[in-house]
């Protein structure tokens, strides 16, 4: 079956939920966006793992769960922590992969345009196990604007406050950058740090301890921590 005929079938199948399908964007436009992914990821009949894993059936799948693909530790941690690929998590990841997994090997800057992401997600959805059911399974499939307010990213933190707050982190995360069982958090670029903390705060990352710890930090405190850790010598 050619892609366009397949698409037609899908379109008919979901016509009764046209409003939801609209929120997914346009899969034909999404196929064009997918060209950016093609050098690493295969999709469709006979797709195999390449530099990245194949993307068939990605909806509802636990992150980093193909047993025959070697993922980064960061992505495995995210998956073990309970993160699954749905429209909302894909949207966050596609916009800025590092927000979901700071150590991902997917060296892709991200899709800045909401429209591109929605179109791509709509295209990916066609290759899922049961695409017609996805709108029901993923009611949050609307575009969520998780772009951090530039004012937040521009906040300059107080490193002295950051040092005090960091003492709560170093109970688990080793200050010398060791990462057995618990990831290292030293020497991160400040922006990565802030993105990660907000992803926990907004529960886009799955770890319950970090959701709790980040959940009670305000913007000033996150900026202070970012400033402190970025400057910390290993």
């Amino acid at each position, binding site marked *: 079956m050619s892609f366009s005929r397949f698409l037609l079938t899908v379109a008919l199948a979901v016509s009764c939920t046209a409003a939801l399908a609209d929120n997914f964007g346009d899969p034909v436009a999404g196929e064009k966006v997918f060209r950016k992914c093609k050098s690493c990821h295969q999709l469709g009949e006979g797709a195999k793992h390449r530099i990245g894993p194949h993307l068939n059936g990605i909806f509802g799948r636990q992150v980093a769960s193909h047993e025959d693909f070697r993922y980064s530790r960061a992505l495995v941690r995210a998956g*073990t922590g309970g993160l699954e690929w749905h429209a909302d998590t894909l949207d966050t990841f596609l916009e800025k992969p590092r927000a979901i997994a700071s150590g991902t090997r997917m060296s892709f800057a991200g899709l800045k345009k909401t429209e591109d992401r929605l179109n791509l997600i709509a295209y990916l959805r066609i290759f899922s196990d049961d695409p017609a059911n996805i709108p029901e399974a993923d009611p949050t499939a609307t575009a969520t604007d998780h772009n951090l307010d530039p004012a937040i990213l521009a906040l300059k933190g107080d490193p002295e406050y950051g040092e005090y707050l960091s003492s709560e982190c170093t109970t688990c995360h080793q200050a010398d950058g060791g990462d*057995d069982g618990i990831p290292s958090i030293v020497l991160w670029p400040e922006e990565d740090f802030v993105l990660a903390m907000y992803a926990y705060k907004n529960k886009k990352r799955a770890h319950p*301890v970090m959701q709790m710890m980040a959940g009670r930090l305000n913007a000033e405190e996150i900026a202070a921590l970012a400033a402190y850790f970025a400057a910390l010598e290993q």
Partner: protein
Amino acid sequence: MTLNRRQFIGTTATMAAVLSAPMVRAQGKPRVVVVGGGAGGATAARYIAKGSKGAVDVTLIEPTRKYYTCFFSNLYLGGFKEIEDIGHTYGGLAAGGVNVVHDWAVGVDRDAKTVSLAGGGSLPYDKLILSPGIDFVEGAVEGWGLSAQNAMPHAYKAGSQSELLKAQLMAMPAGGTFAMVAPPNPYRCPPGPYERVSMVAHFLKQNNPTAKIIVADPKPKFSKMALFQEGWANHYEGMIDWIGDDFGGGNVSVDPNEMTVSIDGEVTKVDVCNVIPAMKAGRIAELAGVTDGNWAPVNASDMSTKADADVYVLGDASSQGDMPKSGFSANSQAKVCANAVRGALTGSKVFPAKFSNTCWSLIAPDDGVKVGATYEATPEKIAKVDGFISQTGESSDLRKATYEESEGWYTGITTDMLG
């Protein structure tokens, strides 16, 4: 104007005295004495020395030259760690500028502001931090006393007691009985007795599979109960008999000579008996006169005692509100305390108190669970803000990751405490 060195020093000293009066003494640096080198005391000493960069004299009084962490001592019983894996020296603290004195603190004169030592002499302080851990309430378990701790070890202060209990476990006859007398609330490490039951069960399953475990518990329920009971059913079916308060678990006496345990009138001959009695603050807190009943009440904002603003109590010995008595809690409280003490002595910025705790427990190989919470200081107490707990029925991958996380935490916290 030119100043010679003597005049310059004189001027600086005067200015310092004016700026930070009344804490800075004319003749030298402010002095902090810390009693107890565990998760609370070691962390406080290290953070004050590190943060003040030599501006504060920090002395740690700790009788033992090697510190064995209570956390992970159950993993030693289960065979997952060697005893040396949980042993640490104080060299890192000394290198970090802490004056480490290996002696017993035997008295506190709060009027003269001195701590007397068993080896003779006394140490003056401006601020005193007590982190003495726990002692046992005398007569808490009928028939048991410290003179019986070799026949029936508590193993609730890690080290020689842990080694003794392990040796007794290994020497158990085939099909023998291991008994535990669990403590009433509040006590050090709420999931500790139940992680220990799990580790003992793991050891017996490998080495003595027909052996039995009896737990007499004065409580009707316990920390992570659903998780432990699920794990016991999955990994050690039929091996563990937990007798809670509803079934007479609180009505217990022991006979260390006969090696018998009486639970609600029924006497059982046992091969190993681990008695974990009711607990109270380490004795020095009582000697300092800062306890009320078994524990030392403290102010949540800085861990200073209700009895004396210049005496602080950290960790298990304190009565502070909602935080469990754990190494993680003591470490967290120590950082808040260190920040406040440093501020009071040197004028450094004092930031608002934030506390947190996470307790990991191992049920079986690669089957780790955890519980944790964040806390804030209120005028009345340390109050819980938010929390989480592992769920029953979690995937084996997640449980394995949780165990690996606990190993990472162990390295993290011991480095954070001891340098």
